[in-house]
C-alpha cells in the first residue's frame, strides 16, 4: 500500500467526490475541480488520483447503470469511505489548529 498521507491534490479530489456525492465519476470530478478552483487537469490525472485514493482506502468505487451516453459505457462512481472521512477531518483539524494559533501580526503587510 502507498502509505496514508493525503496529498494536496488528493484532498481536493476527495472533497470533490464528497461534494458530488452519488454522481462522482471521472469527468464530473474533473469539471467540478475546474469550476471551483479554475485548475484544468487532464482526465487521466483525475483517474490516477482516484485510483490512488482507492488504494489508500479513502474511496471506493462501483460501476453505475448503463446509459445510452458515453457509447453505452457505465460510469465508475466513487464514494468517500469512513477512512477517507477521517483523513479529511484530520487535515481540517490540523489547519484549524494552525489558524487558531496565528496572531494577526504574523501577516506582514
Amino acid at each position, binding site marked *: 500500500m502507498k502509505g496514508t498521507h493525503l496529498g494536496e491534490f488528493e484532498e481536493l479530489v476527495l472533497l470533490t467526490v464528497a461534494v458530488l456525492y452519488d454522481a462522482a*465519476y*471521472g*469527468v464530473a470530478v474533473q469539471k467540478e475541480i475546474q469550476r471551483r478552483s479554475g485548475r484544468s487537469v*487532464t*482526465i*487521466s*490525472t483525475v*483517474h*490516477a488520483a482516484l*485510483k*490512488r485514493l482507492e488504494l489508500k482506502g479513502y474511496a471506493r468505487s462501483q*460501476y453505475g447503470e448503463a446509459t*445510452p*451516453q*458515453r*457509447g*453505452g*459505457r*457505465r*460510469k*465508475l462512481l466513487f464514494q468517500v469511505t469512513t477512512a477517507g472521512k477521517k483523513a479529511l477531518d484530520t487535515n481540517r483539524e490540523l489547519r484549524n489548529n494552525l489558524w487558531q494559533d496565528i496572531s494577526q501580526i504574523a501577516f506582514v503587510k
Partner: protein
Amino acid sequence: MKKSPAKISWLERIILTICDPGMQESILGDLQELYEERLATKGKWRAAWSYFLDALGFLRPFAWKKFKLTITDPSDMIKNYIKLGYRNFTRQKITSAINVLGFTIGIISCLIIALFIVDELSFDGFHQHKDRIYRMAIDIRQQNGNISKTAFSPAPWAPAMTDAFPEVEAYTRFMRYRLPVAIGIKESQQQFYERDFLWADSSLFSMFTFPLVEGNPETALTQPNTVVISQSAAQRYFGDIDPMGQLLTYEGRQDLKVTGVFKDLPANSHIKAELFASFGTLNNFWDIIDNWRILYYYSYFLLKEESNIETVAAKMPGFIDQHLGEEGTQRFIPQWQPLSSIHLDTGRDDELEAGGNKQLLYLFAAIACLIFLIAGANYTNLATASAVRRAKEIGIRKVLGSRQRQLVFQFLAESILQMGIALVLAVLVTQQVLPYFNDFTGKNISIIPSGDNHMLLLALIGSGILLGVLAGLYPAFYLAKLRPVHILKKAVNGAGRKMRSRQFLVVFQFATCAALIAGTLIINHQFEYITKKDPGFSRDQMLLFRLNGEYLNNPQNIPAFKKQLLSEPGVKATSISSHRIVGDQPYYGRYRFAGIPGLTDEIGMGRLHVDEDFVKTFDIPLLAGRAFDNNRITDTSAFLINKTALQRLGLQTPQEAIGKLVSYETRGASGAYLKQGPIIGVTDDFHFRSLHFQVEPMVMDIQPARYHFLAVKLTGQAVDQHIQNLENQWQRLFPDGLFEYQFLDDLLALQYTSEQKMRTLFSLFSFLGILIACMGLFGLTTFLTSQRRKEIAVRKILGATPAQILTLLSKDIFRLVLIGLFIGLPLTFYLAVQWLANFSYRIDLGARFFLDTALLAVLIALLTIAAQALKTVLASPVNSLRQE
C-alpha cells in the same frame, strides 16, 4: 449507440490491450463523454486531437494491467516443455535433423567468422599509447595526375617534423630492405636469411609496447651498430648461450652488437620483426638516407596528450613547401593513419605486412549471416508446414485450457532446444575445425577464452537462446494462433499450401543460393584466368636463387660462374638480374629520351637491371631490334624497353625506338654517374607485377653492381636430379652459402594467395549455404508430397503419367526458385563488378555466368525435389490408399 469515429478507434484498442480490465470501461467512457462534448463545441478535429492527448495520458503505469503469475510451480511446466520438445524432436526425425544440422552449420560459420573478425579488429590494440600513435603514409601525385598510395615516407621528414611541431612528442622510423637479408653469427659463422629485419630508431621501445626481456629499453638502440633480437631469434642463433653482447654480421659487411632481447611480438601486431637494428647504423653504408624525396621508410609519430592530429596535418603543406618547394607540395600528400587502423587499411603499396581486408571481412560476415538465415528460414518453413501434424495437439491443448501464451512458450522451448543442441554441436565442431582454419589463415584463433574470461561462453549461451527465440518466433505465433474449432472439425489443409511467408522464405533462400553460385563461378573463373594467363615470359622449370652477399661483392666473377652452371647437365640457360621477374617491389628511374619530338622532360619508368641472357632465358618476345649481346662490349651502356614504354613515348612502331638515346642518373660500384646509351631493342610486355596492376613502362639495362637474383632454366626431364647437381655445385662455389631456391611457378602463384584463400573460403561457404537450402527444400517437398499422397494415388489410377505428377508437385516451388534467381543475380552482378575492379586484367562478366548459375540452381532444385517426389510418384497407389 454512438461510436467513436473510426480514425481514433485504434487508440481504444491500445487502451484495451494495455489497461487494467477493471478500469477500461470507465476510462473509455470518460474519454468518449469528453469527446462528444468537444465535438459539439469545438469541432471534429480539435475534439479528436484532445481525445488523442487524453488517451495518451492513460498509458501510464497506474492504469496498466496487473500481471499476476498464476503458475504455481514453473519448473513442472518447463519440464513438460522439454519433454514435449524431445518427443517431437524424435518423432519428426528428418525435419529435426535438417533443422539441427542447418543451425549447426549456420552457427559454425558465424562463430568462425566472428572469431576471425574479433581477431582482425584486435590488431595493434595492445600498445599502451595506441590512441596517440599515427603513421604518416604518402599519396604520390604522378605527373599524369594519377595518385599512387604507398605506406612509405622519406627518412629525413620525421626528425625535422618533430623539431618543428610542438604537438609531436616522438617519432620512430623503420626501414626494411626489399629482400631478405643475410644475418651471420660472428662466432659460429652460421648464416640465416631474415625477412623480418627492421632498422629502427631508438625511441622504439618507449613508443611501442614491445617489452624487453633483457637490455635497457631507453638505451638499447641509441648507439650505431647495435641490434635487439626476439627471444625466438636468440634461441635460434645462440641456443643457451647468453645473447647479450654477441656479434652478428649484416650481409657480411656490418657488425652488429646484441644489446637487448625482446619478447616475441604478438601475432596481432602489424609490425613483424625478429630483429631491430639501430637506425643510426645506416649512415655507414646507406648513402641515400638524407634524401628528402626517396620513399623507402615507415614513419610513426607519438603525439602529446592534448594534441590532435588535425593540427599536425594542417601544418604539413607549409612544412613540405619549406623543404621541397611548390613542386613537393604538389607531389607528396601525407596521410595520417591511426595505429590500430593500419592493419585493415587496404590499398597501400609497400606495406609492412600483408594486412587485412575490410571489404572481405564484411563480405564473409554477410555470407555467414546469410547461411544462418537460410537455416532459420528452413526452421520456419518446416515448422509452419508441419502445422497439420501438430494441429490436433494444439486443438486439444486449447480446448483443455492452454492459453495462447503458454503455447507460444511451448513452441519457443522447442526451437530453443533444437538451437541448444545445434550450439553444442557447433562449438564441438568448431573446436576441431579451428586448427585447420588457423593453418589456412595464418592466425592463432581459439574458441577457448584466454584467462578466466567467461564472456564468450555467456555470449554463446545468450545468443543461443536469442537465436532460438528469433527462429521460433514466427512459427510459435503461427501455430498458437490456430483456432481449435477449425482444427478439430477438419484438418487445416496443408496449413495453407500457398502461405505467403513460406513463399517469401523460399524465394529468399534461392536468391541467396543464386548469389552464392554466381559468386563462386565468377571468383573461380577470375582465379583461373589470373593464374593461367601467359605472363609474357617462360615460367616452367625455372628456378630462382638469391645471390648472397659474399658473391655480390665480387661481380667480376659472373661470367665464370654462369659458365660453370651451364656446364651442369640439365641447365638450359641462366640469367642474373636485379629483381625477380615476379613478386618484387618495382623500382623506378627517371629517364631522359633524346630525339623524340615533343618530349623534353624526364619520365619516370620501371627499372630493371639484367644480364645478356635475360631475354633468352625468359623467352620474352622481341618486337624490334635485338637483345643484349655478350660479344658486344658497348651493350653495357645500351637499353631495352618494353611495349608499354614505347607507347608512353608516343612512338608508333617499335622500329622508331631503335637507336634513340636514353640517359639517367644511377649509382654504380664507384658512386653516382650519368648513364647514357641507345635503345637497341623493344620487348613485348610481360607482367612484372601481379595482374592487379597494369603493365608499367619498363627500361632494362646491364648493371652488374645491382644484381641480386639468379634464374636457372632447367630442361624438362629429371628436375629433381638436376637440382641435386646444382646443389652440389653450389656448395663447392659457396661453402658458407645457403642453397635456397624458389620455383618461378610458385612465385607466380604466391601473388594470388589472398585470392586463392578467398576462392576456397567462398566456395566452401557457398557449398554450405546451398546445402542447407537444399536440405530445407528437401524437407519441404517431403512434407508437401506426403500430404498429397492420396491425391497422387488417385491421379495415377485415373491415368496421370509420372511426369505430369512430377510437374504438378514441383511447379509451385519452381516458380519460387526462378523468382529467387531474378532477385539474386543482379545483386551478384553488382558485387562482382566491384570485386573485379581490383584487377587490371579480368574476365568479362558475360551473360554466360548468369545462365550457368540459373541452370545450376534449377538443376540443384530439381534434383532435390525429384529425389523425394519420385519416391511418392513411383509408389504403388495401393499402399497410399489402403491406409484407412
